[in-house]
């Protein structure tokens, strides 16, 4: 089903000399709110190879989301090193970070985060707009993506007119828009009923089969089971990786 999404990101050989897409070394994240200091991540080492499907599990407040924000270049670590395709992310300017989020990373959120005033089609167009793609190419690409996730007949609908599963498909189409190297999902099935959840899981599996790299935070044991590699985070550290 997702053959068309193949974009070369699956070829580990292309990504840096050792094939690592993401290399985290000693990542720390400290939040200071007044006198209280909270260490959300205290020395995380994690390497993702292109084409991997990794689930991240752990209790609430363990630092999973912080980890994902850092990998997604939304947040900057307090200490440690993050190399994306061999490049040190800490040295990137704000604009370069925006480009990385735009082209190399696709986000899928628990609450979908679709813009309610835009149609499904326009939501998918957004990252392409930020990438500076010409109008015509942008429209073709958005159409192609929505067709692939099975929403060809829902393109002009607003998010409020779609079911949860459909909204998450739109979000996935949007995440894939700029052919990212890495797809990050934070509890993608958390707000869905079990049947829609299974649906989305299948979509992720298809994406993996097509060669995409996936990092999925989840409480859903079904996803954790399907992923060949599962990382457990507790108290800001990785306590298991298998």
């Amino acid at each position, binding site marked *: 089903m997702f053959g068309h999404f193949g974009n070369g990101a699956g070829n580990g050989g292309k990504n840096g000399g050792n094939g690592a897409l993401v290399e985290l070394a000693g990542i720390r994240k400290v939040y200071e709110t007044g006198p209280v200091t909270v260490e959300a991540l205290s020395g995380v080492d994690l390497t993702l190879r292109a084409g991997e499907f990794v689930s991240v599990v752990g209790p609430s407040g363990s630092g999973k989301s912080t980890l994902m924000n850092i990998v997604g270049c939304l947040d900057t670590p307090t200490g440690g090193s993050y190399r994306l395709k061999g490049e040190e992310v800490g040295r990137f300017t704000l604009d370069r970070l925006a480009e990385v989020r735009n082209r190399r990373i696709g986000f899928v959120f628990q609450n979908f985060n679709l*813009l309610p005033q835009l149609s499904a089609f326009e939501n998918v167009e957004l990252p392409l707009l930020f990438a500076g793609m010409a109008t015509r190419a942008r429209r073709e690409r958005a159409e192609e993506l929505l067709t692939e996730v099975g929403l060809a007949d829902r393109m002009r609908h607003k998010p409020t007119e779609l079911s949860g599963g459909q909204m998450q498909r739109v979000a996935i189409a949007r995440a894939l828009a700029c052919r990212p190297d890495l797809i990050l999902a934070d509890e993608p099935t958390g707000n869905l009923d079990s049947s829609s959840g299974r649906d989305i899981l299948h979509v992720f599996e298809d994406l993996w089969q097509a060669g995409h790299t996936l990092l999925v935070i989840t409480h859903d044991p079904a996803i954790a089971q399907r992923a060949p590699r599962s990382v457990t985070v507790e108290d800001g550290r990785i306590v298991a990786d298998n």
Partner: protein
Amino acid sequence: MTFRHYLLQLLRDVRSQKLRTFLTLFGIVWGTAAVTLMLAFGQGLHGKLIASIKGLGENIVIAWPSRTSKAWDGLGRGRRIRVTDEDLEKVRREVPLITRLSGEYSAWNLRFRVGRKVFIPGMSGTNAEFGVMRNLNPTTGGRFVDDADVSHRRRVVFLGDKLKSDLFGVDEAVGSEVVINGVPFVVIGVLAEKDQDSSYNNRDNDRANLPASTFKAMYNRAYVDNFVFQVAERDDAVAAKKEVIASLARTHRFDPEDTEAVGMWDTNENLEFMDTFMLGFRLFLGIVGTLTLVVGGIGVSNIMHVVVEERTKEIGLKMALGAKRRFVVGQILFETLALTAIGGVLGLGIAWTVCASFPAAAIEYVGSPVISAQVATITTGVLGLIGFLAGFFPARTAASLDPVEALRL
């Protein structure tokens, strides 16, 4: 395409927040109309006052021969200086800066009679140049005293418009007779109505003019009461005054430094004063108008802050999807400038309507308000600056949002 996205977003905002948009626009519309009208009225009033000043004449100096105040060349002070036409011809030859010159003989005690109506207006005997210098322009069908009138000592008279109405009512006066102290004169012209804010012998609309030669012969005058000269450029007046006094001082043997021997009124001084005053006045109006517009701008800025607040999550999401800061800033600035521009156009339209439909009765007192290119440029400039500032701060807030924080909402 980014533009299209901005535009669609703006339209959605306007549609979803009609009242808020209306109130925001109202501030800008009001402010723009205020600035424009203030400036337009300032300009109209300026024009009106300048026209009034120029009603007396442009670049003219009026001079009254008087008494010496200093001893000179063996002659004591307090000696009367009397100027003749010959003296003035000498002045004309000696002072090339002068472009026009006329002596003026005046009388206040002559009876003007038409039918049974009698008036005793002020009147002057002058040459043809006087009419040009003093803007004594005739209505259609008439003329001022000309050179032939002067050389033939014709018994002709030019009437001020008010005097004409007094004597003739609405009837045509040109060609009719006025009996002045028992001697019939033919009316050759009537003054076209004009603004005149200053005078030295009553307003021109209530006076009559005869050829100087006729005046001298009939009323037995040898010396002018005063004389009037004109220079080509404003700046020439000071030098010309000095040279005129020097010429008369040579003829009549008085100290050329004696400022009282021949008193002079340089009407340009009025104009300069008026220019300075009006500059201050218009600046004041402009500032008051601008402050009104600033208040409108603050309203827009507030609204945009609210918009940023409301859209924090949306902006955070856009950033997560790869929107650069300049996209976010651009969007807020675009909306602000678009709102300001729409309000500005409406405000200008209102101001234009007010100016266009301004009652003629009021124009007589405050002049006709004009939205000149200058006024429009100033308003647009102020508006643009305010729009930019109103958008800049909210946009900066938006651009400094932390996407993680924003998405958590």
